[in-house]
C-alpha cells in the first residue's frame, strides 16, 4: 500500500525536473529499486496510470531497474546475494556481514521532449 506514496513522489520528481528543463512531455522515467525497498512494480504502475493524468508525465513509460541486495562478509570478504531469506556467509558461516547494496530507491533519470525553439 505504501506504493501510492512512492508513486506520488516519483511523479513529483519527474514533473519538477521536466519543468526545470523546459520539457513539454516526459516520455520515460528510470527508477532504481533496491531489493530491500519492498516496492511492487505492478502497484506503482497501477497508481501511475491514474495519478500522472493531466501532468507532463502522463503516458510516460516507467522503467524499473531492480538492484539485488548483496551482503559482504567481513571475515572472508566473500560477497553473496541476500536471496529470499537472510543467511550467514555461505563461504565461512560468519554472521559478521554488512549490506553492500539493495537499499536504493531513486529516480535515476528521465527522458523529456522539449519545446521547439
Amino acid at each position, binding site marked *: 500500500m*505504501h506504493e501510492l506514496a512512492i508513486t506520488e*513522489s516519483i511523479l513529483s*520528481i519527474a514533473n519538477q525536473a521536466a519543468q526545470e*528543463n523546459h520539457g513539454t512531455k516526459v516520455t*520515460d522515467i528510470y527508477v532504481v529499486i533496491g531489493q530491500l*525497498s*519492498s516496492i511492487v512494480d505492478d502497484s506503482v504502475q497501477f497508481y501511475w496510470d491514474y495519478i500522472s493524468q493531466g501532468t507532463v508525465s502522463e503516458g510516460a513509460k516507467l522503467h524499473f531497474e531492480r538492484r539485488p541486495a548483496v551482503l559482504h562478509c567481513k571475515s572472508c570478504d566473500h560477497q553473496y546475494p541476500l536471496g529470499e531469506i537472510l543467511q550467514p556467509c555461505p563461504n565461512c558461516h560468519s554472521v559478521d556481514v554488512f549490506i553492500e547494496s539493495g537499499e536504493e*530507491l531513486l*529516480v535515476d*533519470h528521465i527522458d523529456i521532449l522539449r519545446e521547439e525553439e
Partner: protein
Amino acid sequence: MPQRVEIVKKIMDSNDRLAQNNQAILDQHHVYGINLMASPGAGKTSVILETIKRLPAGIKLGVIEGDTAPVTIDADKIVAAGIPAVQINTGGDCHLDANMVGMALPELPLEELNLILVENVGNLICPAGFQLGTHANVLIASVPEGDDKPYKYPKIYRGLDVLIINKIDLTPYIDFRMDYFQQGVEMLNPGLTTFALSAKTGKGFDAWIAWLTDKVKAK
C-alpha cells in the same frame, strides 16, 4: 528526439525533508521524539501504558497514535492514563509519514512536554521507509511472532536505533530461539541497543525507562 535529464534523486526525499522540519520543531521545544513501530499485536499500546506508569516525575509525555481507521481504542487508553494524545487516522494507509506527524504535532502541548511517543501503524514493511523526524526509531518485536522476523523483514531492522523484545514472559511456552533471533538482528544492525521486557509483568522495564530518561535529560 527525447533528451535525457539526469536526476539521481531519492524518492523519499520530500518525506525526508518534512521529517527534518518535524525534528526542528521537536528540538526547538527540547522534546525527544520516538517512532514506535511493530507488527499488529506486538504490544505497542501495552508497552506505552506500562511506560507511562513507570516514568519519573520530570518526564512529560505526549503520544501520537497512528491508526488505519477512526477507532480511538488506543488513544482513549492513553488519555485515560492522563497523557495528552492525538490520533492520526491514516484513512487505510499502512504507515505514518512525516506530513501526517507534522500536522499532529501542533495539536500536542509541546511547550509542556519533553518526550513524544509516536505509535506507528502495526506493520513491519511500510513504516520502515518513512522517516517521521523523531530522534529514534524503535521496534517492538514480541516473541510469539517468531524468531525468524529479522530474516524475513530485514529492512525494518536496518533503520532501528533501539529494539524492544516484548512478551518475554511467554518464552517458556513457545519455540523462540533468542540466539537465532539476535544473530539476525546483529547481521542487519550490529550492536543495536536492545531491551528484553514484558509489558505484562513489568520485567526488564527498568533498563528501558533508564534509557528513555537519559535521552530526555540530554535534550
